[in-house]
């Protein structure tokens, strides 16, 4: 009947190191399990979705993602797939300020101009799908189980690569790897994925010139540490493809589907033909244009998660124009520009232009709008990147402690 011993832990940590080791093991197992399911789901969809997902289909957009009605589901297949697919690729944010420690924590690589897609090889065939789910090619390749030629080479497996298809030389430039022979790389660091990508690709004949069982050549985009030499090579070095800016990948980041600040894209006139957005006629409009999504309450927002609110439309106007929430709307930014206070958008001088092209699945991201805005006024220049790397090198030895916090 005696009450339990009232002694409490004294001068001892509450969690034993053994308990910590158990928990870390469980966490590792949980993450591996999730990563494997994630890769399987992506592979399954890449392989089995019908090839044609015409983005210009006159299908109605779902009025809002929360209002999903099963009766319409079959009709929504196109948009649902498009939205889902678009979120599976790791999408770099636009670089609007230079991250610290570029040479220590980042890789840099030139970005080939072309169509971003997933390439999956399995069961004797290879399929590439673009961001909107449309099949780009279905072809035999030298990737594992990518053609009928390689039967009998081990148990069935699937591999998924993140590529840019470059029209001019009909080559898939591989920028990342999600899965290789069933092994999921989702929760591996960039450093790990890039090293293995190079290794694994070299084990196959995928980089060989095209042949009967290998319709398109694959090629690795050269990456390097983001020190001065690396940056210079990516920016000005000779590459066999047309460049569209340069990419920065944080070494420690996992493959994270959707927009992420741990991958960044930057460009100027020297390394890209398309620095400032053009309109449908290829002209640079006099005022910057942005595409935003209309919400239930009249707010217009970016596609970030959470979305950034740019403005709020008058409800009368919404009714008169027959706009529905979920619509993507095009605006011009007036002379008032964007007002930023303490790094946060406070006010935007928006002028309504019209609804956006149906081919778009998403509104612009905040970083894209800001990059475009800066590109028109005071762009982030290559000199700024160089300066950041130089100062980072100086500081590396002495100021680590301060930099770390």
């Amino acid at each position, binding site marked *: *009947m005696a009450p339990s011993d009232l002694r409490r832990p004294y001068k001892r940590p509450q969690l034993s190191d053994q308990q910590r080791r158990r928990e870390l093991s469980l966490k590792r197992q949980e993450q591996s399990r999730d990563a494997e399911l994630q890769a399987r789901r992506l592979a399954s969809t890449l392989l089995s979705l019908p090839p044609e997902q015409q983005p210009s289909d006159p299908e109605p957009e779902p009025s809002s993602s929360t209002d999903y009605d099963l009766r319409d589901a079959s009709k929504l297949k196109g948009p649902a797939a498009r939205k889902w697919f678009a979120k599976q690729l790791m999408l770099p944010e636009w670089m609007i300020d230079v991250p610290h420690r570029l040479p220590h924590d980042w890789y840099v690589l030139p970005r080939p101009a072309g169509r971003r897609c997933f390439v999956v090889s399995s069961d004797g065939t290879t399929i590439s799908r673009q961001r909107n789910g449309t099949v780009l090619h279905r072809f035999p390749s030298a990737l594992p189980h990518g053609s009928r030629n390689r039967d009998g080479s081990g148990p069935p497996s699937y591999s998924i690569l993140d590529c840019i298809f470059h029209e001019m030389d009909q080559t898939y430039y591989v920028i990342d790897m999600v899965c290789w022979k069933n092994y999921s790389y989702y929760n591996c660091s960039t450093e*790990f994925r890039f090293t293995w990508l190079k290794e694994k690709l070299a084990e196959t004949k995928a980089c060989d010139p095209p042949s009967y069982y290998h319709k398109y050549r694959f090629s690795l985009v050269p990456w390097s540490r983001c020190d001065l030499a690396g940056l210079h090579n990516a920016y000005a070095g000779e590459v066999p493809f047309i460049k569209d800016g340069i990419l920065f990948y944080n070494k*420690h980041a996992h493959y994270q589907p959707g927009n992420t600040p741990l991958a960044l894209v930057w460009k100027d006139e020297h390394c890209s033909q398309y620095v400032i957005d053009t309109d449908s006629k290829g002209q640079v409009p006099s005022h910057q244009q942005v595409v935003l999504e209309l919400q239930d309450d009249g707010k217009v927002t970016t596609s970030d998660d959470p979305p950034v609110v740019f403005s709020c439309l008058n409800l009368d106007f919404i009714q008169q124009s027959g706009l529905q929430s979920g619509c993507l709307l095009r605006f011009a930014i007036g002379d008032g520009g964007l007002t930023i206070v303490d790094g946060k958008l406070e006010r935007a001088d928006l002028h309504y232009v019209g609804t956006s092209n149906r081919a778009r699945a998403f509104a612009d991201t905040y970083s894209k709008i800001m990059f475009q805005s800066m590109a028109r006024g005071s762009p982030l220049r290559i000199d700024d990147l160089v300066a950041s790397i130089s100062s980072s090198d100086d500081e590396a030895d002495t100021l680590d*402690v301060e930099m770390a916090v």
Partner: protein
Amino acid sequence: MALEVTQVLLNAQAIEGTVRKQAEESLKQFQEQDLPLFLLSLSRELANEEKPVESRKLAGLILKNALDAKEQHRKSDLVQRWLALDPSAKTQIKMCLLQTLSSLVADARSTTSQVIAKVAGIELPQKQWPELIGSLLSNIHQLPPHVKQATLETLGYLCEEVSPEVVDQDHVNKILTAVVQGMNASEGSNEVRLAATQALYNALGFAQANFSNDMERDYIMRVVCEATLSPELKIRLAAFECLVAISSTYYDKLAPYIQDIFNITAKAVREDQEPVALQAIEFWSSVCDEEIDIMEDYGGDFTGDSDIPCFYFIKQALPALVPMLLETLLKQEEDQDQDEGAWNIAMAGGTCLCLVARTVGDDIVPLVMPFIEENITKPEWRQREAATYAFGSILEGPSADKLTPIVNVALTFMLSALTKDPNNQVKDTTAWTLGRIFEFLHGSTVDAPIITPANCQQTITVLLQSMKDVPNVAEKACGALYFLAQGYEDVGSSSPLAPFFQEIVQSLITVTHREDAGESRLRTAAYEALNEVVRCSTEETASMVLQLVPVIMIELHKTLEIQGLASDERERQSELQGLLCGCLQVIIQKLGSSESTKYVFLQYADQIMGLFLRVFACRSATVHEEAMLAIGALAYATGPEFAKYMPEFYKYLEMGLQNFEEYQICAVTVGVVGDISRALEDKILPYCDGIMTQLLRDLSSNQLHRSVKPPIFSCFGDIALAIGENFEKYLIYAMPMLQSAAEMSARTAGADDELTEYTNSLRNGILEAYSGIFQGFKNSPKTQLLIAYAPHILQFLDSIYMGKDMDDVVMKTAIGVLGDLADTLGSHAGSLIQQSMSSREFLNECLSSEDLLIKESAEWAKLAISRAISV
């Protein structure tokens, strides 16, 4: 027969072994031959006033053990046996027991009250023995004191044995009335008063209704408070124990009494004997626990919900409470730090002060600072130690803004005291305080760093120096280093510890070799610090971590060379092997996570695995948990290569899965099966029959701790993913198990927080199994085998949705299963999916979730369903 029992019972306590053995044997035989008669004879022996007290006591003890056991499965066996017993035998036994409560022999009464409570614990939930409480209470007022005492004691044990639901309120009222009257100051007998006070402690859980009634509660509280003033130590102690229990069970009812309780406890802390003073301090620690919990429920910003409001008792009592606790700090015992079992008023007061700081935050700082400043430089060690402890105690709770300026000044002082103070206890507390500084005020989340390039080197030098001090001081220095390293966990690619890495590792290894490293947990603390230093190291020191591999391997090898150890030495050897395997686990995980180091490291894989297998071989029936954990990490690092170790390793894997008693080992082994499935993929197939058989056996066992069951289900999913359609032959076993667990989880939901948490982990395991099975069968011609299970799985998802008590993880996994089901079964499940609630309300709720992972899973489900029903 009766006479014989007496002699056998006495013989069973004989000093001479053969006599004792023989007696035990005949008791066992008697029990097996005729259980009713055996129990009846024992109860008659217990009731017989002419029998010697020794035989009566043992008779009572055997009766008690025939009704209850520690292990859950044995306990339920015993309960079933009692319930199945001949009713007339049970009636006679119970009569004997009730009669014994009036015995003149105190020991007989006391044993009997426990036996009665055990019987009540079995029978009352079955609505049997309804007259028990009534008959105990019928004429309690007229009973002689010794019978009254025994009756109250019985009521106390009874309240401990049975849960409040099975006693109706009328009986509760009568019990409480009897107990509280027995506690009253007017009660003449101290024995009665003590028994009543101790009974109240157990009866408090029954008094929910009575505590909601102002008059009844006032009365109970008055009697308890009066009992704290009794001249009898034991009664005062029991009364304070009641107050502690009340503070956690009825926190929200304390307000009217808190001022009086403060006065009572303050007097006890300052003037009463130590056991009472400790309980008085515990009251305030317990109130802190409550308020910390409530504030955590509020989520800190007071916008969340908590069922119970916070009354801020600690904040209000602060000006008086803090000085009282500071006084206790000066009452240290000599060498309390060297004694693992020590617990005294200074330790209790210090612990309470830490809790108070966590409860009130910044407010405590100005109340403690003058005490620190006044005492920290005094010549008397007690004053310096108390001041240092006071400083250490306020480091968790108050804001970094408030503490940083103070700590910045104090750090130099502490570092110097750790080297120069002549007193070991002061140094012990100083090292502990440094550890707390690093734990709470150093790291990537803190704005202004405490450790700077200017003081980093000095800090490390002092800590390493102090590791050569006496064991208890060295242990705390290792602990401080642990948190110093932890603060650099997210430092990026360059750590300020890197320049000292070699020196730190060397010093820690030296500590583990100290002859006195077995004292004060020193060796363990050194390995734990080493683990953390490795865990938080960066790539610049990767080559040095690599060099550590052979060093630790040699240490482990040495433990394997020693033969013919005595049992206590074997235990120490096994403990050391645990530390070394733990260290290797951390190193494997570290080196395996970076591509550049993994290759070099893998050259050691064969040798390391060989050592782990030898560690296993050191033992006969059980596997070493730490070695198992390390093997999981190794499988993850080696990948498919691990297949070559399987022939030798398999038997230990099976042994781990069979370990019901040490369920942690079983759980860890289940996790390793998952690691191996992912590493080997279809190469695990030859071992799957054995593994699945064992896992299914584990699930059907009522001996295995329930916490292992959810990971076993997850493990089904891992195996299915690895072997794909080959999982076919296990479906007929695994699916019914999953189904019945799913049904059970629907029934147990919503009982209490702990059960809800378990239910959610069970659901998560079941769902992970389903996801693994569906994705494993994807694109196989055998997919149709799964169609039959779809209706039940969809029902399960609906029931989870309707239960409304799922956590975010379950929500994510559940909606993912919906997608996997649609993905794998396609149009075969189209109409089923359309009929299920999960594909409408549940999916919509997940699509609009703020949790990214849930949303992602839901978008997958949406896409897969769209495809399934459009084909």
